[in-house]
């Protein structure tokens, strides 16, 4: 599996086991910012993204001896962050908290109305945003994104396609995205 690079230029998912990060510090400096940015695109909340990125990286740190060289630390960090994010939205707590959060909507929904891009992202369902970010921003393949999200590759493509279409329809009308 090739090294994945975000548009920011840093490796988001370094799945190569031939060149593992030498130290946790190397891993952190290479992966933290792309992870933070990807989580920001998924959650729409810079504070939430920072909390998730820090928490997931700390968990990588706690397991560094186990993860180094034998696995994909960035992939683990991303999965841990998404699991943390999802676990807050799940099962009966899903029901309870989503009920309770009726007045505490998706962070993207409370953005400045003057901000066109963020407003469009606010209207894209979270699951579609995840797929879009992993495919179109992080540059993962549909199979790699499917492994992280725990769904089928075709489901990843479908979700990303829907998100992409909506993004193009909404932002394209303003001349910011080509058809």
């Amino acid at each position, binding site marked *: 599996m090739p090294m994945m690079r975000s548009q920011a230029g840093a490796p988001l998912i370094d799945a190569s086991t031939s060149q593992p990060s030498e130290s946790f510090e190397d891993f952190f400096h290479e992966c933290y910012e792309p992870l933070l940015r990807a989580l920001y695109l998924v959650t729409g909340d810079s504070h939430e993204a920072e909390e998730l990125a820090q928490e997931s990286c700390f968990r990588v740190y706690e397991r560094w001896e186990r993860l180094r060289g034998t696995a994909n630390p960035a992939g683990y960090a991303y999965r841990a962050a998404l699991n943390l994010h999802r676990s807050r939205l799940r*099962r*009966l707590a899903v029901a*309870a908290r989503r009920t309770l959060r009726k007045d505490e909507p998706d962070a993207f929904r409370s953005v400045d109305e003057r901000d066109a891009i963020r407003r469009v992202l606010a209207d894209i369902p979270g699951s579609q945003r995840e797929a879009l970010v992993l495919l179109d921003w992080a540059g993962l393949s549909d199979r790699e994104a499917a492994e992280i999200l725990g769904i089928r590759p075709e489901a990843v493509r479908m979700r990303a396609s829907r998100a992409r279409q909506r993004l193009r329809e909404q932002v394209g009308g303003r001349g910011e995205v080509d058809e």
Partner: protein
Amino acid sequence: MSDVRSVLDREARRVSAPSGAMEAMFLRGRRRARRTRVLTIVFALTLAAGSLAGVLVAFSGGRSSQPGDLAGPTGTIAYMQASGSNASGVNASALFAASVQGGAPVGIGTESYADYPVWSPDGTRVAYGAGADVNSTSLIVANADGSGAHRIVDVVDPEPLSWSPDGKRIAYIGNKNGLMSAYVVGADGSGNSLVIEGGFWSTVSWSPDGEHLLLTGNPDPSAPAEGFDIYTVRTDGTDLVQLTHGGGYEGFATWSPDGSRILFTRGDEFETYAQDVYVMSADGSNVRRLTSWPGFDSFPVWSPDGSWIAFASDRDASPEQRHAIQADGAFTNISLYVMRADGSDVQRVFTAGDGEALLPGSWRA
């Protein structure tokens, strides 16, 4: 697509890793450990104070939960009622117990967040998760009327619980290091131990013979499988057996009281609200769909004799309310229903109001 990418990248660059990010990460990790210790002490003191004052709170009539007209099922259902955020925005929910034949719901516990009440096998105790908020919770055991509540173990975001048939141990799903793993702890708080690490285990149920746990989820932490399935595992963590291979997302799997059948939910996607209730033989064969509702049918629990099933559904919500549930995740007007074990004779027993979800956790005689 490249233009989509550039738009996303422009948005992503609104955030950057500040200098000192690594130090901030370590600080957060250490604070988490400290906070856990402090909350343990505070919560224990809160419980002690609550016990002295008489923890049980009786709600005369209930705000909107009204028993319906039933002929058939009997017993008492413990359920969770989502109730709204407090002024500081901390999530809150409450537990109640009520007879399916009528009568006032009785509140269990006084914590601002409580979830998933499960009766002990003899019906004399109830286990549930509770705390100041969902991220600072403990597994609690109390008498059936809610009195004598005491902390068993700290569990962040406790999952559905299950008692051993002899009432001496409790299985639960714990969130640790980003992994949802299955644990067993003594009902007196002793011997807390990992049974099987996640992956992403979602629910757990103890077999009537006491030898196995029934799990839903995904066992592989490094390469998530497609969908969640149902598994059995011995209580010592060995002999993991996959029972379903459907490609969907199974959840809330529980054995029938006689151990011959398994009740569960299935949805096509993760966190989807279009779930239905299914039953199958204990070996995974003879899968039968009990409900076919395009919306939310979930949280199924058996009646004590296995002849009825309670579940939560949005089937009587208005189209606008169901749209809000599906599109925005706004759980509202999700009421509590019962049906016979073959899926017939569906009856609403407790009616949720606007902004409420009534979610069954357990049913005792």
